[in-house]
C-alpha cells in the first residue's frame, strides 16, 4: 500500500431503518485521500454528504448501519468497537461541525472541554494540558487566550466559537480533519478568517482536510480534489481545476451555472436546475438526476449510469457522457416556466 494514502474508503454504504422502510443515505462510496491533500465534498441537503463521514466517525444515529471498508492509516475503522475507535477519533481523526454553539457544551468552561481531550488521549497532567490548550487557542488566533480559556462558550462570538471548535479538533494534531460546513453559519468576513486559518494550519501541521460544503466558492478556494454527490451517490470526481473548467456531469454543470457570481455577468437570468432535490426515500428509477436532467433519455430512466474513469481520480457517472451536450456549449436560458415536481 502507498504510504502516502491516509484514508481509503471502499464501497461504503450507509442505511437507515425508518418506519417508512430502509433509506439508503450513501451508496457505493469509494475514494482515497493522500497526506496533506484536501478533498471537497459538495452536494445539496439530503445528498448524503455528511452521513459518509458520520459513519467514519462512528457517529451515525442509532437506526443507521454501515457496510464497506474505510482504511485509515492502515486500519479499517468501520465497525470498530467504541473503545478501539476512541483511540483514533479525536486523536488522529477529528471532525468539526457546522454549528459551533450546539457542538460545545454550554455548561463547561472551554478550559475543561479542551484539557479533557489531552488528559484522556495523551495522559497529560492538568497543568500541561492547560498550557497546551492555551497554545492551541493562540494558534487559531484567539486574543488573550490565557484569560479566555476560562470562559464559557456563550461568552464567545460565533466566529470565536468556531475557532474554539477548531482548536479542540487540532489538540492532538490529527492527520485528518473533517470539516462539515465549518463556515456556513458565519458571516463572510469571519468565513474568510476561518478559511485562511484552515489553509495555514494545513500547511503548518501537514494534515489532510475533508471539506463538506454546498458552497462552490469555498471549494474553489480551499480544495485540491472535489467529489460531487447527488441522491446518495457520487456523480463526479476530479481535481478542482478539472471540475470547474470542464464539468462532465449535467448536475455539476447546472450547479456551477446556477451560482450567482460576484465576478461574472449579471444581467441575464440565472440558470436554474428545474425541480427539487430528490427524496432519498423515493428515489427515481435509473439515474437519480434524470427527472431534472434536460439530456435524459429512456436509458437514463431505466438503468443507473455506470461510472466512467477518464483519468486517475477523474470520474463521472452519466449515460450521456459521449452525447452531444459535451461538445455544445452549456445551455444558458431557463425553461420558460418552472413547474415544480409532483408531490
Amino acid at each position, binding site marked *: 500500500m502507498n504510504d502516502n494514502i491516509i484514508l481509503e474508503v471502499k464501497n461504503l454504504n450507509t442505511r437507515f431503518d425508518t418506519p417508512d422502510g430502509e433509506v439508503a443515505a450513501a451508496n457505493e462510496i469509494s475514494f482515497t485521500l493522500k497526506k496533506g491533500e484536501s478533498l471537497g465534498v459538495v452536494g445539496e441537503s439530503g445528498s448524503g454528504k455528511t452521513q459518509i463521514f458520520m459513519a467514519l466517525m462512528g457517529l451515525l444515529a442509532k437506526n443507521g448501519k454501515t457496510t464497506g471498508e474505510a482504511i485509515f492509516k492502515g486500519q479499517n475503522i468501520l465497525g470498530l468497537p467504541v473503545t478501539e475507535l476512541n483511540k483514533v477519533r479525536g486523536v488522529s481523526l477529528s471532525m468539526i461541525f457546522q454549528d459551533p454553539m450546539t457542538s460545545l457544551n454550554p455548561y463547561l468552561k472551554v478550559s475543561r472541554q479542551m484539557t479533557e481531550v489531552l488528559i484522556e488521549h495523551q495522559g497529560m497532567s492538568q497543568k500541561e494540558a492547560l498550557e497546551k490548550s492555551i497554545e492551541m487557542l493562540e494558534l487559531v488566533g484567539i486574543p488573550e487566550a490565557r484569560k479566555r480559556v476560562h470562559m464559557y462558550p456563550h461568552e464567545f462570538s460565533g466566529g470565536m466559537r468556531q475557532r474554539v471548535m477548531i482548536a479542540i479538533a487540532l489538540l492532538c494534531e490529527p492527520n485528518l480533519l473533517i470539516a462539515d460546513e465549518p463556515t456556513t453559519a458565519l*458571516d463572510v468576513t469571519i468565513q474568510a478568517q476561518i478559511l485562511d486559518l484552515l489553509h495555514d494550519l494545513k500547511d503548518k501541521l501537514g494534515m489532510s482536510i475533508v471539506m463538506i460544503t454546498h458552497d462552490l*466558492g469555498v471549494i474553489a478556494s480551499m480544495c485540491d480534489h472535489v467529489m460531487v454527490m447527488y441522491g446518495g451517490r457520487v456523480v463526479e470526481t476530479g481535481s478542482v481545476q478539472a471540475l470547474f473548467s470542464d464539468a462532465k456531469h449535467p448536475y455539476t454543470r447546472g450547479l456551477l451555472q446556477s451560482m450567482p*457570481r460576484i465576478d461574472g455577468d449579471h444581467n441575464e437570468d440565472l440558470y436554474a436546475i428545474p425541480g427539487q432535490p430528490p427524496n432519498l426515500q423515493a428515489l427515481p428509477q435509473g439515474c437519480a438526476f434524470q427527472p431534472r436532467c434536460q439530456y435524459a433519455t429512456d436509458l437514463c430512466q431505466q438503468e443507473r449510469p455506470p461510472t466512467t474513469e477518464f483519468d486517475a481520480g477523474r470520474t463521472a457517472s452519466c449515460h450521456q457522457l459521449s452525447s452531444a451536450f459535451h461538445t455544445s456549449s452549456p445551455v444558458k436560458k431557463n425553461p420558460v416556466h418552472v413547474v415544480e415536481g409532483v408531490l
Partner: protein
Amino acid sequence: MSVNVKVPILTVDNLKVHFPVDTGTFFTKNKTLKAVDGVSFQLHEGETLSVVGESGCGKSTLGRAVLQLLHNTDGQVVWMGQSITGHSVKEMRPLRKQMQIIFQDPLASLDPRMTIGEIIAEPLVTHHPELAGKAVRYRVREMMDIVGLLPRMINRYPHEFSGGQCQRIGIARAMILQPRVIVCDEPVSALDVSIQAQIINLLGELQQKFGLSLLFISHDLSIVRHISHRVMVLYLGNVMEIADKDDLYNSPKHPYTQALISAVPAPDPAVRKKRVVLKGDLPSPIDPPSGCVFRTRCLYADEQCSQKKPDLVDCSTSGLNRRHQVACYKIETIDD
C-alpha cells in the same frame, strides 16, 4: 429594465431604531442598543435596493421599521409623499395592501394548520372582505400559477412542501394584493443553491411583470450583485456606502465594502485571490465605537476617525442623477 428616477415610492430620512436594554441592576442607567442609527434612502418604482451587511448590522430591523412593523425612535418614513411615521395599526391597515414582506425561514412563516389556499387567500380576505369565496379561490389559483406552484395543490398543508416551494407560497401570499413594494428579508438564504436560482429568477420575473419595487435584505454579496439596481452597505446600524450596483462592485470606496467584496470566495479555482481579511468581530451595538463605527476593524483608521461620525458624502465619478455616497474620511488615501 428602466427605473423611474423621478418618483420615489418610499423615502426614509434619518431613520433610527433604538431598543432599551436592561442592564440588570437598579442603580445603573439602562443602555440603548442602536440597531439602526440614522439611515436615509429613497426607493423608486420598479427598483431593487439591496441592503447588505453582517449579522447584527441592523438590516432586518431596518426592513421592519420601513414597514412600520416596528416603530422608529427618530426620523421619517414617507410613503408616496405622505409620512407614515408612528401610524397606528389601524391607520396602517389600508396602506398594508401596497407593502408586503417575505421572510427568511419559509416553513416557519407559514401557519402549519392552514392549507396553502387559506394562507395565500388570507391577505385578500382581510383587505377585500366583499369578495366571494369563489372569486378568492380563482385569484389564489391564478397567483399559484404565476409563482410556479401547481394550482391543484391548493388544499395541501405547508409541511407537504419543500423549502423552495414554501418560499413560493410566501411570495404568492405577498403578491396576491399586488403590492407596490415588497421587503424581502433574506428570502433565499435557507435554500439549496439550485433552488436559490429558481427563487431569484422568480422575483426578477415578478418585478418585471408587475413593476414592483423590492427592498432586498441579504448577507450574500453574489446574490445581491445579481438582483439589485442599487446597493446599500450597512455596518452597526450606519450606512457605509450606497451606490449603483456596478459602481459599488467595480469600484468600492469604503474600506468595509472593499473587505466584504474581497471576502467572498469566487467559484473559480484559477482566481485564488489574496483577500483583505478584517481582524476581529463586529463590536457590540450596545457599546459602539466612538466616531466612525467601523474604525476598530479598519486598516486606515487614525485619530480623526474616532472623533466624529463621518457623513455620507457624494463621490460619484460617473452617472447623471444617481449618486455614489460614502461615509469615510479616508477615501482620498485609499486606492480602489
